[in-house]
């Protein structure tokens, strides 16, 4: 069954996440980022950052909390067993810092058929409490074999 392409543009409720120092350390450790700006707030401040810094792929932590509501949207008709992660993009306006409170708001950016597969792009804006965008994440999921023939 093809995905419901009429949902392109649909926005889902934002999920708010508070970025903690220990979470950044845990994530940095898990991805082999041993630089002290990711582990020690004082070292980060000495290096010119306002606070301990999150590694570049940290927005995935927010993604994993905000994404399931899209993937499981019954109107979309996505069978997760057929899905592979095709592309991931992050657009950064500034680094994520410890103490940030970010709201991740996903929307369906596009649904395109290419051959037998469909490409679903979920765009998630991550904003601070003033509404300023910090990161925009775009994940393209490949729904294998679901395109209309």
């Amino acid at each position, binding site marked *: 069954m093809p995905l419901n392409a009429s949902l392109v543009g649909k926005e889902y409720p934002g999920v708010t996440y508070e970025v903690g120092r220990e979470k950044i350390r845990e994530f940095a450790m898990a991805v082999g980022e041993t630089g002290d700006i990711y582990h020690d707030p004082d070292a980060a401040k000495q290096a010119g950052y306002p606070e301990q810094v999150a590694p570049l792929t940290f927005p995935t*932590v927010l993604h994993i909390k905000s994404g399931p509501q899209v993937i499981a949207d019954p109107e979309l008709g996505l069978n997760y067993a057929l899905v592979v992660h095709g592309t991931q993009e992050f657009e950064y306006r500034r680094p994520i810092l410890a103490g940030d409170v970010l709201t991740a708001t996903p929307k369906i950016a596009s649904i395109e058929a290419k051959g037998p597969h469909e490409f679903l792009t979920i765009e998630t804006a991550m904003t601070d409490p003033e509404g300023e965008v910090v990161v925009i994440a775009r994940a393209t999921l490949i729904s294998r074999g679901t395109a209309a023939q």
Partner: protein
Amino acid sequence: MKAADFEKVQVGDELPERSNTVDREQLVRYAGASGDFNPIHWNPDFAQMVGLGGVIAHGMHTMALVAKAVGDWAGGPQNVRKLTVQFRKEVRPEETVVAKGRVVDKDEATRTVKLELWAELTRDGETFKPIKNGEALVELP
């Protein structure tokens, strides 16, 4: 972390490689740290059952190594404007992934450098690219 010197950067320059030999513990750690508990990344029985022949690494775990190569070269995450990768092949425990990149464009006006990125691994004597067609935009100080 010292940023690459914009004046000296040339199209064709290669980034210092970053390599990592994946093991099961890393994948369990990454599952916990990221919140991605898909059992294909940590449960061998489940991964077998769905036809993967064993657990495979999170694509985002491999992307993180590519991101490290970019961030280190850029002098820190504050100089990275954009990072994109395509996931093309699975990575398995005990395999060594090497993240690579090269400069493909340089814009004097915005002090922005465009990088091409990929990751490689060797399996049964053959080289595969688990990440292909990656791209980053870096604005150097």
